[in-house]
C-alpha cells in the first residue's frame, strides 16, 4: 500500500532522448510536487500542482513538462535530455493548506549518458 509511488526507479538514457516519470498518490492529498536532488543532495522544487492546476513553476527549462490528469497523478516528461539533467527526481504530495508535512516517493534516479 505505497502512499506515493513513482516509476521507474532507475532510468538510464542517452542525450537527446525524451523520457517520462510517473507518480501516483493514494493519500487523498490535493497537492503534488516534483523535486530534483542533485549529486550534492541539494533538493530543489521544480513544480507544484494543486487539484490538477499548476501553482509553482520554479524556473525550470521548458524541456520539462509536468502533467496532472487528476489530483492523484503527476507525471513528468522531459524532452531532449541533457547530461546536466542527471539527478534523482522525487515526487511528493501533501494538503495545500494547514501545517502538514510532505509524503515523498522513493525517487527516480535519472542518468543521462
Amino acid at each position, binding site marked *: 500500500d505505497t502512499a506515493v509511488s513513482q516509476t521507474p526507479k532507475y532510468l538510464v538514457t542517452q542525450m537527446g532522448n525524451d523520457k517520462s516519470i510517473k507518480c501516483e498518490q493514494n493519500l487523498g492529498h490535493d497537492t503534488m510536487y516534483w523535486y530534483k536532488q542533485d549529486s550534492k*543532495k*541539494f*533538493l*530543489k522544487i521544480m513544480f507544484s500542482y*494543486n487539484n490538477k492546476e499548476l501553482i509553482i513553476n520554479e524556473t525550470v527549462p521548458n524541456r520539462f513538462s509536468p502533467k496532472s490528469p487528476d489530483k492523484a497523478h503527476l507525471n513528468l516528461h522531459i524532452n531532449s535530455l541533457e547530461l546536466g539533467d542527471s539527478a534523482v527526481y522525487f515526487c511528493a504530495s501533501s494538503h*495545500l493548506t494547514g*501545517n502538514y508535512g510532505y509524503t*515523498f516517493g522513493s525517487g527516480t534516479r535519472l542518468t543521462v549518458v
Partner: protein
Amino acid sequence: SQQGEEDPQALSIQEGENATMNCSYKTSINNLQWYRQNSGRGLVHLILIRSNEREKHSGRLRVTLDTSKKSSSLLITASRAADTASYFCATGRPGFGNEKLTFGTGTRLTIIP
C-alpha cells in the same frame, strides 16, 4: 538563494549518545520541518514546528525553534544504528500554503555501533 543551511554537514557519534543538528534560515517562515533520508531512499517527514511554537517532542526527537535567530535544532536522544541517515530541515513561507518547501543542505549523521 538557498533558504536553510544545516550545521554540521556531517556528524559521527557512538550509539547511545545524543545527536544535535542545527538549521539556520534567512526569511520569515510559516513552519519548519525536519526530514530524514536514508541512503538511496525518499525523504521521510519527522516533525513539524509552527512559527509560534518554541519546542516540540516526538518520541526520541526534540525540536526547538528560535524565530528571532532564525534557527532550529533537532536533538535525537539515545541514538541507534538505524538513525544513520541524512537529516534535512525545510521551511514553508508565511501567507502561503504548502505549495513550496525550501530545503536546507542536510546533515549526514553516522551512528557507530
